[in-house]
């Protein structure tokens, strides 16, 4: 956990230490560490802290801090699908992200509603990303219907320290994005609810990577061979998403959650994500979740693992090819002090996810392990 992250948690815990236990909660402070490791030599440690505090008049303040430490040490640099420039020996870098948001209570006599704004900045050695979001969340129909909507604008600047000679003059570069989402949750009865939503967005600017290379066949007959060329992606990408979910309380402290997500973009990538989770309350203090997600995706129109000739659009990004992923997971939440979701509660959360991702176009499978451990204090 980075020092600043701990500081946020300690300040939040200290500020709320005087509160009586078992009072209704008006905030939470949590710290969590996620670990990712795959069979290609990629290792990421993500540590984060999040503080949420209710203010007078029903307003809410949120602050989050995240740090990623990324290490890439290819176990088999020769067979890696996406050719990269550089020595291929590895990379260590950090990414820092800070998010701050304010949600104002604008509830009327007949319905509750909040409007808010959130700002986010992410910094890494060769990449700067900043975004701002406006959001609305409200309840209608005596609390039976909840609606959330957001509009986000983001600006990213890429400043690579190393790039292909073909790309001289292209970097540093930037791209902008605008996205909008709306989601609805509706109670269907005492034990069932349904949720659904749609989103759309557009990205404009430099959307290729300065590091990846496209493999292109050059020369004739016996003298033909593959050479690396700089990527050329379209300068615009429109994205559309949607989801539909159903949750059902099964009785005896168990609930079933089903969800289906869809994705489409103007590069002709289509994706579907069915997901199922079963959550069990084991006594008053322990919550056990078992989940499984499947993700399947089609190929972008211009993606080829290897190009037979130099084309105007080309990519070395295997993520733009057809792929699928199986992700089973388990999560355990244990309230070790106090009552769950009540002021004074201290909760430990641990999770583990296993992912098997297959890139069909290059016949490559990536197996990754993703454990996490966290501590949350409700105040």
């Amino acid at each position, binding site marked *: 956990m980075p020092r600043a992250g701990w500081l946020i948690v300690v300040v939040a815990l200290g500020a709320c230490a005087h509160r009586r236990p078992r009072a209704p909660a008006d905030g*939470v402070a949590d710290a*969590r560490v*996620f670990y*990712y490791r795959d069979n290609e030599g990629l290792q990421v440690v*993500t540590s*984060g802290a999040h503080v949420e505090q209710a203010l007078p008049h029903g307003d809410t303040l949120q602050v*989050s801090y*995240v740090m*990623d430490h990324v290490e890439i040490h290819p176990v088999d640099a020769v067979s890696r699908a996406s050719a990269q420039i550089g020595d291929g020996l590895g990379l260590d870098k950090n*990414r820092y992200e800070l998010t701050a948001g304010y949600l104002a209570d604008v509830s009327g006599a007949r319905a509750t509603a909040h409007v808010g704004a959130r700002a*986010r900045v*992410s910094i*890494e050695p*060769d*990449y700067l990303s900043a975004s701002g979001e406006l959001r609305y969340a409200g309840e209608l*129909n*005596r*609390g*039976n219907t909840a609606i959330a909507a957001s509009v986000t604008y*983001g600006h*990213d600047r*890429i400043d690579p320290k190393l790039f292909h000679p073909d790309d001289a003059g292209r970097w540093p570069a930037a791209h902008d994005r605008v*996205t909008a989402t709306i989601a609805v949750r*509706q*109670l269907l*009865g*005492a034990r069932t*609810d349904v949720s*659904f*939503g*749609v*989103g*759309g967005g557009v*990205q404009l600017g430099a959307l290729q*990577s300065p590091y990846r290379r496209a493999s292109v066949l050059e020369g004739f007959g016996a003298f033909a061979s593959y050479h690396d060329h700089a990527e050329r992606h379209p300068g615009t990408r429109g*994205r559309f*998403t*949607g*989801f539909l979910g159903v949750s059902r*309380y099964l009785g005896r*402290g*168990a*609930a079933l959650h089903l969800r289906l*997500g869809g*994705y489409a973009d103007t590069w002709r990538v289509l*994706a579907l*994500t069915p997901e199922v*989770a079963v959550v069990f*309350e084991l006594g008053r203090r322990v919550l056990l*979740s*078992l*989940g499984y997600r499947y*993700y399947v*995706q089609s190929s972008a129109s211009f993606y080829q693992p290897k190009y037979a000739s130099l084309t105007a659009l080309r990519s070395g990004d295997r*993520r733009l090819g057809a792929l699928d*992923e199986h992700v089973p*997971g388990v*999560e355990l939440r244990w309230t070790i002090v106090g009552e769950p979701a009540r002021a004074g509660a201290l909760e430990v959360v641990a999770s583990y996810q296993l*992912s098997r991702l297959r890139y069909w176009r290059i016949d490559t499978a990536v197996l990754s392990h993703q454990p*996490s451990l966290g501590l949350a204090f409700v105040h």
Partner: protein
Amino acid sequence: MRGGALLALLLASACVTVQPWQREEQARRAMTQRFGEERQAGKYRAKILETKAGGGSAWGVPGGGCGCSQ
């Protein structure tokens, strides 16, 4: 077509009114604390998906920050 079906579902479901005193089971932790969705976990899962797949999460439109969405 798909949008129409969603709208029909919304209109049909809006006719249902569950009174506050009937929502005890809706408020159970098993219903409200879904797998990997709270605060940091939800963002982290979206980030991992964005890093490994070209499409990204259906629960939001991905955007840069890790250099992985280019």
